[in-house]
């Protein structure tokens, strides 16, 4: 049992013990989960200092002759950064949850789900092959389902959980096809082996493009890219710490992380790669537009997350671009991952901040019912504003560096550069709108008036994350897992232009929304999210429910009634026809007997003669 396996399994043990043994002892279960997260964090810090992290142990899961699927642990490169994000932010969120969920009835269930998530997410990061990644990929889906549906007695929460699971399943459908295609072509699912095989052999480009596209479908689902983005805003029905951990910092970023893992495949699949770029760019744009008109604080952050994920995906997509025989590969994926890394801190901070605000405002989520919170909630407000600045890309906060890295990559395709810049403007704009409405002005409802600073237990994570949001962009914070030279750095005027765009967004947001009590410029199509939810519902009605209904009718009417019952009816009818001959008339029988004798005689006679 290696350290890595302990990191992997400890949360599972915590989850199981919480679910099965500690259902009635809610407080104990919370401490068990938090403790396991803490231990994992400590062990991880120890682990990432080791020099050799290639093969950290392996467990043979399925073996049939030559066919083997292993649970093998591999940790290198970007994975190191990812595992730190997962365990660190995971631990902080456990800590925050101790306060946030203090009075919840389903505390044991909640922490059990949280631990299950830690287990699954660690598994994704550790995976050394696609099959293992898929296993944990599914498991994060489940833990997300469980946590979104934590307040299962709320209809909206139950629906949102279901929706998240379905949409993710659709993505996983593609992911699995991709894995299978890879397995068919290479006979292996191990990252290292596939890379080796790819380097040494020729493979059908069409098939590779298709398999990369299919694998990307997994990322579309999990990282909520267009057109499967609809579940993420709804997922905000879950407790806020869950939104911070799963639906902002880690799980939704897993799609990006996964793409960096299969970088070597994207490099040789340029068509699929450009699909990835455009999907990312469109997601970034659409989500940012939608974010500008939302009124629910968590929804705004959710769309912001979507938009930032689109950025990352777009960046990774550039890995398939070849310029003068040189692949953009590593620098593109590093740029994407760099943004993932910084984003994890400031977005988790934003969500936890919003959680603190919601907690303080007695579970009020509408920003127009808040206002003036900077007065009573100084620390929270300041951390929130720092995170906003980081997200807007203000120098020298972390977001500035990572956004610049992505834009540097995007220089290679002007259209995407334009979209990216516009999104940067929108980001600054809607975040400013949020801050202005929530923190400044006057309190617009009694819940905002009564708000007061949250307890220390919840402030500690905020403060720690603020440190991360400020410094994550500095070289020292990432140089231990990725070579700083391999992260593209902007040159020339680009950083100044981007900063100008960000400042423009902030200024326009500030002046447009200062002192407003309600949305001054309602744009229905954006507030209604381009009516995509409604369209999807109609599509589902048509393509699934209607077809299913038709299938059921066919099943009941054609197969069951007509064929089966009809067959039975036919037999019955023949039977009753024959029954008519059973008249009970002795003379009739005798007549038939006579005729029978004559026929037999005739037949025998004919046969012999």
């Amino acid at each position, binding site marked *: 049992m290696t350290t890595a396996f302990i990191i992997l399994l400890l949360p599972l043990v915590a989850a199981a013990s919480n679910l099965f043994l500690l259902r009635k002892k809610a407080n104990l279960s919370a401490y068990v989960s938090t403790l396991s997260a803490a231990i994992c964090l400590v062990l991880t810090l120890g682990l990432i200092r080791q020099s050799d992290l290639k093969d950290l142990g392996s467990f043979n899961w399925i073996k049939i002759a030559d066919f083997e699927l292993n649970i093998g642990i591999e940790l290198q490169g970007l994975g190191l950064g990812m595992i730190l994000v997962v365990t660190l932010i995971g631990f902080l969120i456990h800590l925050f949850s101790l306060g946030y969920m203090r009075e919840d009835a389903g505390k044991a269930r909640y922490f059990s789900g949280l631990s299950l998530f830690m287990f699954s997410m660690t598994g994704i990061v550790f995976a050394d092959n696609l099959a293992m990644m898929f296993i944990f990929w599914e498991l994060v889906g489940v833990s997300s389902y469980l946590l979104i549906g934590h307040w299962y007695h709320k209809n909206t929460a139950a629906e949102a959980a279901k929706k998240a699971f379905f949409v993710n399943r659709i993505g996983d459908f593609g992911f699995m096809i991709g894995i299978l295609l890879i397995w068919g072509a290479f006979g292996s699912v191990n990252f290292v082996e596939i890379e080796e095989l790819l380097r040494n052999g020729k493979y059908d480009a069409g098939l590779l493009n298709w398999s990369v596209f299919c694998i990307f479908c997994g990322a579309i689902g999990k990282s909520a890219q267009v057109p499967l983005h609809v579940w993420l805003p709804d997922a905000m029905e879950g407790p806020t710490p869950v939104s911070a951990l799963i639906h902002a910092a880690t799980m939704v970023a897993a799609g990006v992380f996964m793409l960096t893992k299969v970088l070597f495949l994207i490099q040789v699949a340029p068509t699929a790669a450009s699909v990835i770029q455009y999907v990312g760019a469109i997601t970034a744009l659409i989500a940012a537009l939608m974010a500008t008109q939302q009124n629910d604080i968590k929804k705004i952050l959710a769309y912001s997350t979507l938009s930032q994920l689109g950025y990352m995906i777009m960046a990774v997509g550039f890995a398939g671009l070849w310029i003068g025989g040189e692949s953009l590969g590593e620098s593109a994926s590093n740029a994407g991952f760099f943004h993932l890394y910084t984003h994890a801190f400031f977005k988790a901070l934003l969500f936890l901040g919003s959680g603190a605000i919601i907690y303080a405002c007695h579970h009020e989520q509408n920003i127009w019912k808040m206002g003036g919170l900077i007065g009573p909630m100084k620390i929270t407000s300041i951390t929130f504003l720092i995170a906003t600045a980081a997200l807007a890309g203000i120098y020298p906060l972390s977001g500035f560096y990572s956004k610049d890295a992505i834009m540097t990559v995007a220089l290679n395709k002007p259209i995407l550069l334009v979209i990216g810049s516009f999104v940067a403007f929108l980001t600054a704009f809607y975040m400013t709108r949020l801050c202005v409405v929530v923190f400044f002005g006057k309190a617009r409802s009694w819940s905002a008036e009564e708000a007061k600073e949250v307890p220390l237990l919840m402030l500690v994570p905020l403060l720690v994350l603020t440190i991360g949001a400020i410094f994550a962009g500095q070289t020292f914070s990432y140089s231990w897992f990725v070579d700083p030279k391999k992260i593209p750095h902007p040159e020339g005027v680009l950083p100044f232009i981007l900063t100008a765009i960000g400042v423009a967004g902030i200024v326009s947001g500030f002046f447009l929304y200062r002192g407003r009590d309600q949305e001054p410029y309602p744009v229905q199509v954006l507030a209604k999210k381009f009516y995509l939810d409604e369209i999807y519902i109609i599509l589902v009605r048509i393509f699934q429910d209607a077809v299913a209904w038709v299938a059921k009718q066919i099943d009941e009417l054609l197969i069951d009634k007509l064929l089966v019952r009809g067959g039975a009816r036919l037999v019955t009818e023949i039977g009753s026809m024959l029954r008519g001959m059973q008249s009970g008339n002795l003379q009739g029988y005798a007549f038939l007997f006579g005729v029978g004798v004559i026929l037999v005689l005739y037949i025998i*006679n004919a046969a012999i003669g």
Partner: protein
Amino acid sequence: MSLLFYIFSGLMLGFGTMVIVCRNPLSSALCLVISFLGLAALFVTLNAYFISVIQVLVYTGAVMVLFLFIIMLLDIREEKSKDWNFLAVGGGVVVLFGFVVQLISVLGGYEDGKQKMVPFPEDLSHEDVKMIGAEIFTNYNFHLQVLGVLLLVATIGVVVLSRRQGKEGSENN
């Protein structure tokens, strides 16, 4: 010989027809007696004296008496419907016709059946009772026992059936 054969055959078939034509069951029974007597005579022409005697004793003697007895007992005179059931008659005629046609066509093609009878060998002419007895009590002994059981069962059955279904009988049935 041929003459006798035709006379007795005619007797048998003629009165056989009368059996089914007569409306009164009593007449039917009496016609059947004569028909069976003709049959017994045919057995004699075939040198089956034992069978002939049995035929007379069992059928014309015992069975027909039984028939008459029952007809008297139940006091059945005429069939209720004076008219013939033409459907049944038609069916009967069809069967009769078809059967006769088949019979003739089968027998017409049966070459072995064209052999003429030759006089019975003298040494065997009066041996048949002995031979049948020997056969029954050697080769068919077991079958004879089974037959005995059958008759016993029939006897018991008749007793059970003809018991009046009175107070004590209702439970059993």
